[in-house]
């Protein structure tokens, strides 16, 4: 078992269109996030090299290409799985993202599951290999109390 983040959202498109936008147009909608820089020189532009042998890469301003992860499943319009590595991960450290596209009436529910943070080393926090977000949520009340008391003890939470 590994840590898991699960996020779902409905988008106004068919699964076919949603899959296409997720992959072929990722460079147009992806918003760079300082906390999740792929490389120290990021952000660049994300793109998928399509197909079952493809990969997700970030092209930096210098023209250098960083491989975020290889495609592990390419099943349009239903499912997409790819690896996810940030340059700061140790060799062999890896996480995986699974995206599924489900028709809901005229729309599509896009679900992202990001698993495997446990394999990220101590400096990346998961050393203690805690249970996944679902488990945490089930115990949300006391985790929140704990978090609140920790924040108080720690004074200010860093941005």
């Amino acid at each position: 078992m590994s840590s898991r983040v699960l996020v779902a959202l409905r988008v106004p498109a068919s699964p076919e269109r949603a899959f296409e936008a997720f992959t072929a147009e990722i460079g147009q909608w992806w918003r760079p996030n300082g906390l999740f820089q792929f490389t120290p020189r990021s952000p660049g532009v994300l793109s998928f090299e399509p197909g079952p042998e493809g990969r997700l890469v970030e092209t930096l301003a210098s023209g250098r290409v960083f491989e975020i992860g290889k495609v592990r499943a390419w099943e349009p319009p239903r499912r997409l799985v790819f690896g996810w590595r940030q340059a700061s991960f140790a060799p062999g450290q890896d996480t995986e993202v699974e995206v599924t596209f489900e028709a809901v009436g005229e729309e599509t529910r896009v679900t992202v599951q990001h698993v495997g943070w446990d394999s990220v080393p101590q400096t990346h926090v998961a050393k203690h290999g805690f249970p996944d977000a679902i488990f945490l949520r089930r115990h949300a009340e006391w985790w929140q109390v704990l978090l609140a008391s920790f924040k108080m003890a720690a004074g200010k939470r860093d941005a």
Partner: protein
Amino acid sequence: MNGALDRTLAALADPHRRRVINLLREGPRPAGELARDVGLAPSAMSRHLRTLRESGLVEESHPAFDARVRVYALRPEPMIELLRWLEETERLWSAQLGALRDHLARDRPPASAPKDGEPAE
């Protein structure tokens, strides 16, 4: 690495041990008190406490006045750090999926306000 995770999950899988964790939320307690409050024999409690200690969920100390007494306390850092990381990751994907939705919504402008030029920033 996964060994640590397995130990943690195993530690939390037992209802007595979860009860201990909940009690420790209120503050550190001696082993004897924990045994009494959870309703276990001291020997059974010390096995559970050892499992919790090995998982890193709790730590043991001795009060200055009596080295025979073992006091247990919760170690929140690993939970907090992971929780924070999970929250950040969740926030990242929520934001990205929101951006994907907005991107797709541009394909299908609402009927009330049809536009076909470049969307203004």
